[in-house]
């Protein structure tokens, strides 16, 4: 099935993006990445440790011949911080992809919409392929599209919460009105959440904790791969109309008789 995902100048066969955080170990992370079928992996940017300056960094554990890296600006609270982080990420990793994440509140990790839009606009102008994390707000998503973002990434629930698709109606409205790909980012907790999001018609999913915090992350990565695919195929197939009354699947004619039929 030719059903590729196009984001800016990038094309992917997989519609599942996966993070690199919170895994029990590096080998489990690597096995989960392989099991997920993901082609895009997210990473964060931080100061190096000067007490171990030549030590390993996350890119030493990621096969860049297999995976496209999507650095994020997680931890930033202002557009200025996010823009500098993005430019450092581009220099360190040689990619123009950036997940813009500007947080407005440390407890909910909800995005600061104003700062997110400002950062996105500046980074688009600086030549980045910008994928912003944003609330499930159709207006904010439209504004991000208008400043030139290559996709929009509304949350389905707070980051790391695993609460699932809290507002499917908003996500559906965002998708209906967007002219750029919509990637549900944050909140997916299990396979049914992934399938539901994809059945709403969104273009892709980004998840981290839903896989990394499962009891068996590798198995959950596999489940998420199939759920994402199943949801996508179901969306393309077009679900049946919902009805309030039953409608028999078996013929209603030619039924056998257990009472003497009346003859006239």
């Amino acid at each position, binding site marked *: 099935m030719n059903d590729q995902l196009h984001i800016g100048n990038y094309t992917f066969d997989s519609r599942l993006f996966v993070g690199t955080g919170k895994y029990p170990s590096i080998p489990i992370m690597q096995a989960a990445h392989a099991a997920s079928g993901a082609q895009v992996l997210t990473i964060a*940017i931080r100061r190096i440790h000067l007490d171990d300056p030549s030590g390993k960094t996350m890119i*030493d554990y990621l096969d860049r011949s297999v995976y496209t890296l999507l650095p994020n600006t997680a931890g930033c609270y202002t557009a200025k911080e996010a823009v500098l*982080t993005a430019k450092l990420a581009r220099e*360190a990793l040689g990619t123009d992809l950036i997940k813009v994440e500007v947080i407005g509140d440390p407890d909910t990790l909800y995005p600061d919409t104003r700062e997110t839009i400002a950062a996105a606009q500046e980074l688009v102008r600086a030549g980045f392929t910008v994928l912003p994390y944003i609330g499930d707000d159709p207006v904010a998503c439209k504004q991000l599209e208008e400043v030139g973002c290559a996709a929009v990434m509304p949350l389905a629930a707070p980051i790391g919460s695993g609460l699932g698709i809290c507002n499917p109606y908003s996500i559906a409205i965002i998708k209906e009105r967007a002219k750029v790909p919509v990637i549900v980012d944050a909140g997916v907790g299990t396979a049914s959440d992934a399938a539901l999001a994809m059945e709403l018609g969104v273009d892709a999913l980004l998840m*981290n904790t839903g896989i990394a915090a499962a009891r068996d992350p590798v198995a959950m990565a596999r489940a998420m791969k199939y759920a994402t695919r199943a949801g996508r195929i179901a969306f393309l197939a077009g679900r049946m109309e919902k009805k309030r009354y039953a409608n028999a699947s078996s013929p209603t004619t030619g039924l056998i008789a257990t009472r003497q039929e009346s003859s006239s």
Partner: protein
Amino acid sequence: MTVSVNGVTHEIDAGATLGELIARLGIRRDGIAVARNYDVVARGAIDATALCDGDAIEIIAAVAGG
């Protein structure tokens, strides 16, 4: 003169370059990026960038994240 590297003050020789600072700290060159006074220094310009007293240097790399 003194410069700050990732928030920690370091004493270096006057006229030292960013490349010399990175070498002295034993920092790897691949997979990192450097900002001087909140502007990114291109990889190819690190060795030729002269440091000034009071410069704020940030050196970053990729870590696990979502």
